[in-house]
């Protein structure tokens, strides 16, 4: 009986698989597929993991997910899934799923040193509010913070942004996406004046060349990688290049593998720019019509604290580089300075690293002039065992591919570029190369920043959940943007705080130095994923801080929290994500959350009921606030103006910000639900459709302003699989800035219409020489950025590089994927991948347990010399999914000074046998 049932099921799965990918099958087989699935309710969803945004179909029965499949109608993945697709169904059902609020208590009362004890939601929110008010009264809006996520649903990120910025008047909200793609964002804004890529994934099917820069696509973005491999099968001229610091799975599918030293990508890109000019391959008409040239300061530090007051003794030598740096020989050459002289440079522009000004083409040309083949090859060659001539030949081959005017080319990059002490620069440089060639904003020619999280774009960036942002690319430190936001949110003038808040690493530093003492974490695991973790773990547990963590599983962050709030996961709630190609995708609640678990959105709204306007819209001290129209160090009392607008001091933030008459007009139930439940609405006890109301309110910011989203209901239509914004007159925009595809282009065929930072002073490579500003609407910027050495490099003591990253089977900090028990056995512990000869030299062999030590801490791990990552001599790699091998205890918390994104790729370590 069992056997025949199994056989029947397998026939059904086979037939359904064939149908999903369009392999023709017999009528009998299709009947088998239908019968297998007949008792299941199917609905469309989107994968919860990486930023590719694959469509999946979800089958439920009796309140449980019973099957998932790649969505054949999804243009992103066309029926395919990678192994992570599997997790979508499995992650809900881990044995240690959190199902009730837990608070540290002793004798029935909150106690920081107490044990986690189950409490009711009311008890949880009551204590959370007491602690909030204590921190807020004492330290003001800067004394509290929120660490959010690129996995937040659009509505969750929006609600929290509104609560923090409009309600609490605090800009201390920042997503984990800061450490994922902030460098990409900063470069988008600086180069184009608007965030997110011009092109889309379809470029793969139009191109002749894919170059992966610091992106192990085969492991981190496997479905997209399959599209790349597929393109090569059908297109004989297709070439694939992998530019990497170690041999990885992406090398397997590549025609050309270029192994470089850490941070030398900046030099390599200048070599390409130089070659393009030398070979007369500049697309002069394009550059003249659509580009300007720019430069910025180079003495910008490394995003560390400027003081060593909190540093461990061993950290202090590197910490000192935040203040003053002696250039390496290569840096001097790259800056056009005499390499025989000592150049000691005060890092005077650490706080103004994003300054830039116009320069001429001749300045740019002079800037890249030192980056000759000889200089760059010697500097960048990453594999000591490769000959210099062989490496030079590869660089020339790379230049051939880029410079060939007939060859279409897509550059993909991820964390190798973004997690980089010069992450913004290197993002800008790849655009410089594409802009010089005019290879941009048309099918097949595309510089494309891949993302690592499912809604890094949709929520973190588009909603604007960063410490400096507001929705639709607006920022808190521009008065006009605050005005627009205050009007849309119906706030009294000057409610919003003009001072940029703390980014994620700074929130951790604030907890350590006492400037912040209350923090709420949602949909991420910062106490594992932020570098230099020993500092932050201690700050969480030893300082008088109150840490709230909303989580589905007992992650590291939950374990160091004072209060844990159990959350509903992905398909247990209504929501939406936006992927890396600007595609917004929404889904319905499919199954109920377990136990007392509730959506993050419900938690935000419930908490907002515990704070009144009188507590937040009074005068507030903001240390360091200096802005036109504000008294120094203060936000004004806006309560009187608020009362004129109809608000009352005793109104709660829930009433003032969320349960507005406009929002209540969206009734629940709604026909779009098609019988699906909504636990958020149910437990709020309301009759309005919270997720729809918030989506529409948010979408109002972008419509008519380059960021148009379609109406909520459209995304739920059976024939829609997400839409790429701007969606204008019902049509999505596949390629932006190109008149053929983008209705926002008003002047000419190509127009880089993004409006930010399009008026600058003019000067030369060393600085501006005029006060006068020039406007250049519609143009993109070609930046000159020099080579900069990593903030720390191996030396006689710490003698190996350590790079961290992701593996196919596990995702990020492993909070979810480690809960798939069989999978955890497949990849139980993170190993240190290193070169066999480096191991031998230290008297070690594979599978030896070793201590790995940096200036910041030490951990124990097993070494591997024959894994799928094969580092060259002097280099090692470890994934960061495993909390028992806590690699972020080792990593330096230096950041790109412009983007504030940490560099997880370059820490100096030493290893020795346990």
């Amino acid at each position, binding site marked *: 009986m*069992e056997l025949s*049932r*199994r056989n029947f*099921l*397998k*026939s059904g*799965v*086979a*037939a*359904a*698989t*064939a149908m*999903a*990918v369009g*392999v*023709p*099958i017999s009528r009998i*087989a299709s009947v088998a597929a239908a019968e297998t699935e007949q008792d299941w309710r199917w609905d469309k969803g989107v994968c919860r993991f990486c930023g590719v945004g694959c469509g999946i179909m979800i089958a439920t029965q009796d309140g449980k*997910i*019973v*099957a*998932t*499949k*790649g969505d054949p109608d999804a243009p992103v993945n066309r*029926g*395919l*899934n*990678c*192994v992570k*697709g*599997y997790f979508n*169904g*499995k992650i809900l059902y881990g044995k240690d799923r959190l199902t009730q609020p837990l608070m540290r208590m002793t004798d029935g009362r909150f106690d920081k040193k107490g044990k986690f004890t189950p409490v009711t939601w009311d008890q949880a929110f009551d204590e959370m509010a007491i602690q909030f008010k204590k921190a807020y009264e004492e330290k003001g809006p800067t004394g509290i913070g929120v660490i959010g996520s690129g996995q937040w649903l659009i509505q969750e990120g929006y609600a929290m942004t509104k609560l923090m910025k409009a309600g609490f008047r605090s800009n201390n909200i920042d997503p984990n996406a800061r450490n994922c793609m902030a460098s990409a964002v900063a470069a988008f804004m600086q180069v184009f004046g608007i965030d997110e890529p011009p092109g889309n994934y379809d470029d793969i099917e139009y191109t002749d060349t894919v170059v992966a820069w610091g992106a192990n696509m085969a492991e981190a973005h*496997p*479905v997209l990688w*399959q599209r790349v*491999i*597929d393109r090569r*099968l059908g297109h004989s001229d297709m070439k694939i290049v992998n530019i990497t610091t170690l041999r990885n799975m992406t090398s397997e599918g590549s025609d050309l593998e270029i192994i470089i030293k850490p941070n030398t990508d900046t030099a390599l890109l200048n070599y390409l720019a130089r070659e393009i000019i030398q070979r007369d391959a500049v697309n002069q008409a394009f550059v003249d019509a659509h580009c300007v040239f720019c430069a910025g300061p180079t003495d910008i530090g490394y995003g560390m604290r400027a003081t060593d007051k909190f540093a461990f003794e061993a950290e202090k030598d590197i910490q000192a580089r935040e203040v003053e740096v002696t250039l390496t020989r290569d840096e001097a050459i790259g800056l056009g300075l005499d390499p025989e002289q000592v150049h000691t440079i005060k890092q005077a522009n650490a706080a103004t690293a994003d300054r830039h000004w116009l320069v001429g083409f001749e300045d740019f040309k002079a800037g890249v002039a030192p980056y000759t083949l000889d200089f760059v090859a010697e500097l960048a060659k990453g594999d000591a065992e490769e000959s210099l001539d062989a490496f030079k030949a590869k660089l020339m081959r790379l230049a051939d591919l880029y410079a060939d005017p007939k060859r279409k080319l897509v550059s993909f990059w991820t964390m190798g570029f973004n997690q980089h002490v010069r992450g913004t620069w290197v993002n800008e440089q790849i655009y410089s190369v594409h802009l010089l060639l005019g290879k941009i904003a048309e099918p097949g020619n595309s510089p494309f920043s891949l993302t690592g999280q499912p809604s890094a774009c949709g929520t973190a960036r588009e909603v604007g959940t960063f410490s400096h942002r507001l929705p639709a690319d607006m920022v808190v430190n521009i008065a006009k943007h605050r005005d627009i936001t205050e009007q849309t949110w119906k706030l009294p003038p000057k409610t919003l705080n003009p001072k940029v808040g703390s980014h994620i690493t700074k929130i951790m530093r604030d907890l350590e130095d006492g400037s912040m003492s209350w923090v709420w974490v949602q949909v991420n695991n910062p106490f594992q994923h932020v570098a230099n973790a020993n500092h932050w773990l201690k700050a969480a547990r030893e300082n008088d801080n109150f840490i709230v963590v909303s989580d589905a599983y007992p992650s590291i962050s939950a374990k160091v929290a004072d209060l844990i709030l159990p959350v509903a996961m992905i398909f247990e709630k209504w929501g939406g994500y936006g992927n890396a190609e600007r595609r917004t995708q929404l889904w319905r609640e499919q199954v109920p959350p377990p136990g007392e678990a509730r959506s993050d959105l419900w938690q935000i709204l419930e908490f907002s009921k515990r704070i009144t306007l009188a507590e937040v819209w009074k005068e507030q001290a903001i240390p360091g606030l200096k802005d036109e129209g504000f008294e120094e160090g203060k936000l004004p009392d806006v309560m009187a103006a608020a009362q004129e607008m109809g608000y009352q001091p005793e109104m709660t933030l829930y009433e003032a910000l969320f349960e507005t008459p406009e929002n209540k007009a969206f009734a629940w139930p709604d026909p779009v639900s098609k019988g699906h439940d909504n636990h958020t609405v149910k437990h709020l006890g309301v009759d309005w459709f919270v997720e729809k109301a918030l989506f529409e309110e948010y979408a109002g910011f972008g419509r008519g302003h380059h960021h148009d989203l379609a109406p909520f209901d459209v995304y739920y239509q059976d024939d829609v699989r997400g839409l790429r914004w701007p969606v204008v007159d019902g049509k999505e925009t596949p390629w932006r800035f190109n008149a053929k595809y983008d209705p926002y282009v008003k002047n000419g065929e190509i127009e880089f219409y993004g409006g930010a930072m399009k008026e600058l002073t003019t000067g030369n490579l060393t600085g501006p020489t005029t006060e006068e500003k020039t406007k250049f609407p519609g143009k993109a910027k070609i930046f000159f950025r020099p080579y900069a050495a990593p903030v720390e490099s191996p030396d006689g003591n710490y003698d190996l590089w350590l790079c961290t990253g992701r593996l196919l*089977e596990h995702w990020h900090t492993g909070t979810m994927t480690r809960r*798939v028990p*069989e*999978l955890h*056995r*497949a990849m139980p512990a993170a190993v240190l991948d290193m070169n066999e000869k480096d191991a031998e030299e230290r008297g070690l062999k594979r599978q030896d347990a070793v201590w790995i030590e940096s200036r910041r801490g030490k951990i124990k791990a097993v070494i591997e010399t024959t894994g799928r990552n094969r580092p060259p001599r002097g280099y090692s790699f470890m994934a960061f999914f495993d909390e028992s091998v806590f690699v972020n205890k080792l990593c330096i918390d230096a950041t790109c000074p412009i983007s504030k994104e940490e560099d997880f790729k370059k820490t100096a370590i030493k290893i020795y046998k346990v």
Partner: protein
Amino acid sequence: MNISGILVVVPPARIEDATRELNALPGVEVHHTEPSTGRIVVVQEAETVEQEIAALSRIKALSGVMLAEMVYHVFDETPPEWDATPAEMAAS
């Protein structure tokens, strides 16, 4: 028990050999083929995800395989039959 539907693509000329090689792998059954495009639909049955991933790697390692990716997952949680005949008794 996990059951997955996997799409395998090989050069059309290799489809017969590949079908044979796939069927020889433990837990793998070829269900549908499309000779003109070299596409093969297999069903993979495995006790654990570990085995499932190992099996997918084996499929990818077969000669001429250009693509092998999972499409469909069923979480077959049929309760164990506590009263079924234990394997060691059935063998005797």
